[in-house]
């Protein structure tokens, strides 16, 4: 098991390196092949004036004249051991993991990401709890009462949930509950540490809209999984033992039906950790997704690089976690 974990961690680190190289190439190499000069790149980071002295200063400061492989090396080195920059009277130290400074505001990227992680995590975790519980519960009930009115109704709603885009449900819920009935008049993120009650209260709407989409998906997946599992031979065995139906469903049926869901959940959750872009946008929450948008719209490359890498890290990490969890819950995986 230990060897397995070490091997997986090693592969994960390697994967992250590849992702960083590809991201770097996309943002620094490709535009250059498209005819972008270091001058025009630097000019984007100077104000309206585009003073040649300022451009030269920016180029020197950001090391834009260095060969690309060297720039990439500096980038990776800064993440691992940190870096030093001259953005003021004294050199400022950017501690590892250093993703550099925003080209536009000169604010360090990493602390900004750290500041936003609680927002995105709050969103993702809360929504995940809601959608897993409601999605699985609805899915199980629908499967057990297949063909009933409950089943048809919930699956109909689920179909709508899967088909309606997030920005539609998000805007409608915002229009209804925030602008019309003003239940949540000034929706903003309140850190958990500041006021847990307000934190939860302000997150209800984003949680529910986000969870609606996923609940629908998970209800359908759970239902399909349950229908398949409940037809398995081992369910009949469980019944033949004289187990109560409840125990048959939960301990034997659900356990097996939910296992494949772990993988899907791992991916969905990891993607959300990288930023619930649309939800954050709709509700004006300043999470990783909103930061990514900021980076992209202002062509602030260090932000884009930072968010991409952190998001990739979450995906790789969650994948690793899923593999380990899977090994824990499915003994057949563990030993092969």
């Amino acid at each position, binding site marked *: 098991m230990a060897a397995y974990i070490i091997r997986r961690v090693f592969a994960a680190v390697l994967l992250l390196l590849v992702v960083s190289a590809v991201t770097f190439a996309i943002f620094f190499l490709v535009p250059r092949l498209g005819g972008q000069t270091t001058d025009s790149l630097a000019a984007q980071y100077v104000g309206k004036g585009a003073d040649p002295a300022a451009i030269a200063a920016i180029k020197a400061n950001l090391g834009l004249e260095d060969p690309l492989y060297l720039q990439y090396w500096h980038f990776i080195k800064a993440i691992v051991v940190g870096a030093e920059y001259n953005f003021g009277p004294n050199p400022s130290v950017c501690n590892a993991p250093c993703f550099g400074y925003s080209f536009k505001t000169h604010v360090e990227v990493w602390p900004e990401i750290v500041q936003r992680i609680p927002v995105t995590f709050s969103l993702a975790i809360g929504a995940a709890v809601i959608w897993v519980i409601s999605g699985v519960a609805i899915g199980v009930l629908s499967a057990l009462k297949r063909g009933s009115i409950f089943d048809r109704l919930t699956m109909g709603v689920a179909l709508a949930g899967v088909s309606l885009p997030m920005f539609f449900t998000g805007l409608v819920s915002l229009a209804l509950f925030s602008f019309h009935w003003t239940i949540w008049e000034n929706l903003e993120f309140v850190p958990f540490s500041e006021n847990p009650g307000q934190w939860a209260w302000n997150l209800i709407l984003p949680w529910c809209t986000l969870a609606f989409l996923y609940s629908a998906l998970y209800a359908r997946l759970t239902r399909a999984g349950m229908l398949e599992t409940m037809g398995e031979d081992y369910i009949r065995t469980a019944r033949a033992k004289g*187990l109560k139906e409840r125990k048959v469903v939960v301990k034997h049926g659900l356990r097996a039906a939910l296992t494949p869901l772990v993988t899907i959940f791992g991916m969905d959750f990891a993607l959300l950790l990288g930023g619930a872009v649309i939800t954050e946008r709709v509700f004006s929450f300043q999470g990783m997704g909103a930061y990514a948008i900021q980076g992209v719209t202002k062509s602030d490359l260090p932000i884009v690089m930072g968010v991409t890498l952190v998001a990739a890290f979450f995906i790789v990490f969650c994948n690793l976690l899923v593999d380990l969890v899977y090994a824990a819950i499915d*003994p057949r995986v563990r030993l092969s």
Partner: protein
Amino acid sequence: MSDVSKTDTDAGPAGGESSEGAARKFLSVRDLRIHFDTDDGLVKSVDGVSFDLEAGKTLGIVGESGSGKSVTSLGIMGLHSSERARISGEIWLDGEELIGAGPERVRQLRGQKMSMIFQDPLSALHPYYSIGAQIVEAYRVHNKVDKKTAKTRAVEMLDRVGIPEPARRYNDYPHQFSGGMRQRAMIAMSLVNNPELLIADEPTTALDVTVQAQILDLIRDLQKEFRSAVVIITHDLGVVAEIADDLLVMYAGRCIERGSSEKVFYQPQHPYTWGLLGSMPRIDREQTDRLVPVKGTPPSLINVPSGCAFHPRCPYADVPKDNLTRTERPDLREITDGHFSACHMSRAEREKIWTEEIAPKL
């Protein structure tokens, strides 16, 4: 089979359709019908089956797939969904009628008084729980004991069914067991509560030949030890020939021949039974003529053929006069003491065919 049990067998089986004495027998099934509503129509999986079984005895139910033998056994266990299956008739177990009893009562009996071994132990055992845990679970459903006691019991049962190093293998998962071991574990699980009735549904089908024999031996030994009544369901007459006291041959949801295994085996009365005998693997037979299946395909259970359900496949369908096989369903009639068959042919006709055409080929 010991001589003692054989003597018992001879004295045993009672007459056909009357419910007289049903309550006296340990297991008595009376006119059991299990129908399923499907989109295509009503599927009559079991359509009026009756039999008895005494404690300590073994009954073999034989038939092709789709003949209703498994449905019958699941019916006894109460494992059909009440929403989908329509069940009628009577099932008496040790003086208690099960079809009329509430599902909760049947559940309590399940696994305790009656238990079941399934065909494919790999799929019948839960892949995510260890063998030990699954046996412990079966034990603790019906016995209020702590986990430790239950574990001791489970290890004891694993030992009893011949699993080497049972304490260590206790923690293994089904996929770590070989096929035969899995079936042993399955048997250990179904016997953990000393059931008085054990139903084994094709217990050896998924296993290779040498293991088959071991498992059958095991069931036989355990039966002696626990004095359970055993129902073995199989499509393979050879499996039950030695182990069963009585045999019941099913075709299209009905019993077409029933009697002591000796009688059914050596003096079979129904052309379908002849066919089954012909498809039986035998060591003394040439490779080439082995496993000649009964010609034709099993009938639809929605539109069961008129008359004798077997007539479309029966080579002797035209022997009885007046097209009788196609118009009238033959009743189950007693031929000799305790030996029943449902065929329009006269006894003389059957014996002639048996001795002249069938027996020499077997």
